[in-house]
């Protein structure tokens, strides 16, 4: 069998990776010594589990998932397609050749709202099956305006279906530590931020620029590659590359922010599928979420927030000349 199984688990509140995940923006799978994007080759055909959660029917789940799927499909710069196949008695997380989305009772995962698992063809990174579960231990809501004290199912479905499509976590967010040792989101610039907003909020039903850049990178619409540009560079500290530095590109004319990480030991980064134009680059340590939500290895977070000395242009149909951004220890 050429096809072998690779399992990648991502979660909203806690994340872990069983195989090397090349972190941020996109999930990756090692193929012939290099990391390739985890993507679907055709429409995402999914089933919805008939299992219900307290106060919610399977129909409620199906409708919330359908709305989340429509939101991803509506990104004009990407070609994403979901196809609902029907209800099923199967549970998510079972390798059965079907992509199943449903509730599971996982009391041991007391901080995990939902998770996505994959069956990947490790010869080319194609997704063969992916299941999403929502933890029925939480109080869920499908109310149009949200319900105080209840987690919005559509928001979490949108996040998990981002994983299902191949996106990983975004670090565009700010948090503060809570008394219980967890983190509370104070601000977010991406629905793919690994920590959910407070129960009762519905803001994460709306994709942000960072999410749309990511999905258009994985599934670019016709002409998108030629119509957008990229920024490349290197983050260094004391003359050495800085793996894991979070680089955010801010377009001052549109207000759009899109981020990515320096993803190798040389500190090299690339932010692509950007609207052409000048960008301000801000580099920050990954200190607003758990590092293992992004990286399976330790990274250096001991450096100060630093701005690139000048604006960098993302040229139409190409990439900027590499810029070096030097950071200093805290």
């Amino acid at each position, binding site marked *: 069998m050429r096809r072998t199984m690779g399992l990648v688990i991502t979660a909203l509140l806690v994340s872990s990776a069983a195989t090397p995940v090349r972190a941020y923006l996109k999930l990756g799978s090692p193929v012939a010594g290099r990391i390739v994007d985890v993507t679907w080759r055709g429409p995402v055909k999914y089933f919805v589990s008939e299992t219900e959660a307290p106060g919610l029917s399977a129909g409620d789940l199906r409708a919330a998932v359908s709305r989340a799927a429509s939101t991803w499909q509506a990104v004009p710069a990407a070609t994403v397609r979901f196809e609902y196949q029907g209800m099923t008695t199967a549970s998510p997380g079972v390798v059965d050749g079907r992509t199943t989305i449903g509730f599971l009772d996982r009391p041991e995962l007391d901080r995990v709202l939902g998770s996505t698992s994959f069956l990947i063809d490790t010869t080319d990174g194609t997704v063969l099956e992916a299941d999403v579960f929502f933890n029925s231990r939480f109080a869920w809501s499908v109310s149009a305006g949200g319900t105080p004290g209840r987690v919005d199912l559509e928001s979490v479905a949108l996040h998990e279906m981002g994983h299902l499509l191949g996106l990983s976590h975004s670090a565009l967010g700010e948090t503060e530590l809570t008394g219980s040792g967890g983190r509370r989101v104070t601000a977010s610039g991406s629905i793919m931020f690994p920590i959910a907003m407070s129960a009762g909020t519905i803001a994460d039903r709306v994709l942000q620029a960072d999410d749309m850049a990511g999905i258009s990178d994985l599934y670019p619409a016709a002409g998108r590659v030629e119509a957008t540009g990229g920024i490349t560079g290197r983050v260094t500290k004391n003359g050495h590359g800085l793996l894991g530095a979070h680089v955010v590109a801010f377009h001052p*004319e549109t207000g759009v922010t899109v981020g990515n990480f320096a993803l190798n030991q040389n500190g090299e980064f690339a932010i692509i599928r950007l609207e052409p134009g000048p960008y301000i680059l801000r580099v920050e340590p990954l200190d607003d979420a758990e590092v293992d939500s992004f990286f399976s290895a330790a990274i250096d977070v001991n450096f100060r927030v630093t701005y690139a000395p000048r604006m960098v242009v993302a040229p139409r149909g190409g990439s900027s000349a590499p810029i070096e951004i030097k950071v200093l220890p805290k």
Partner: protein
Amino acid sequence: MKCASALVRRCSSAFVLGCLSVVSASAQEAPALRAHRVVLEGGLVWSGSYGIGDVTAQMRSNAPGTTPPPVTWFAVSSEVGAAASAVARIGFTLTPGVMIEGGGMFGMPRVAMTITADAEAGPQQLEGEQLKQYVIDGALVWQLPLRFGPRLRSFVSGGAGYLRQLHEERTLAETGQVYYAGVGARYWFRGGAGRGRSLGLRGDLRANFRRGGIDFEDRTRVYPTAGVHLFFGL
């Protein structure tokens, strides 16, 4: 009423004196360019600085609703700095007092940026980038019928131009328009009497209204320019 009549008489007298002095100035031999001739010019122009926008990077706050109020992440204030440019112009005199002209200007102003309101970093001035800026324009110049000396004559001008700004990496050009109105004067070293070629110095002061180009708020920007050119009337 008596006082009012006296005031009217004084005003009338001042008006008549004013008319006489204009007639007197016109009657004298003011320096002028020759009609239907080409005038070549070259020199330097200094452009004043102007802001190109104050913007904020924002994220969504953790609040109820689909569009929660934004949180400022950091703020950026930017300006195009003052710069000197080289200028070359060619004109054609329709009459001794009226000239149409066109020209090009090249300069390298610097875009400066200041970061503020970042909770994780102090306020800082970034190095910025150096633009390559080109302006190609056309204008109408009217020599005023006023005389300030045997070699000096003032003028007013107005025109419009095409602006092209190239970012430092030379991979993106931003274009726009420049409209301007100004005053100036010519000083003749040679010629100016209606015969022969002329050579002199021209000084310009302009108010410029810029649309487009690099700008973070898509607004009209106003900035001054001052220029000094050598002119050569054929």
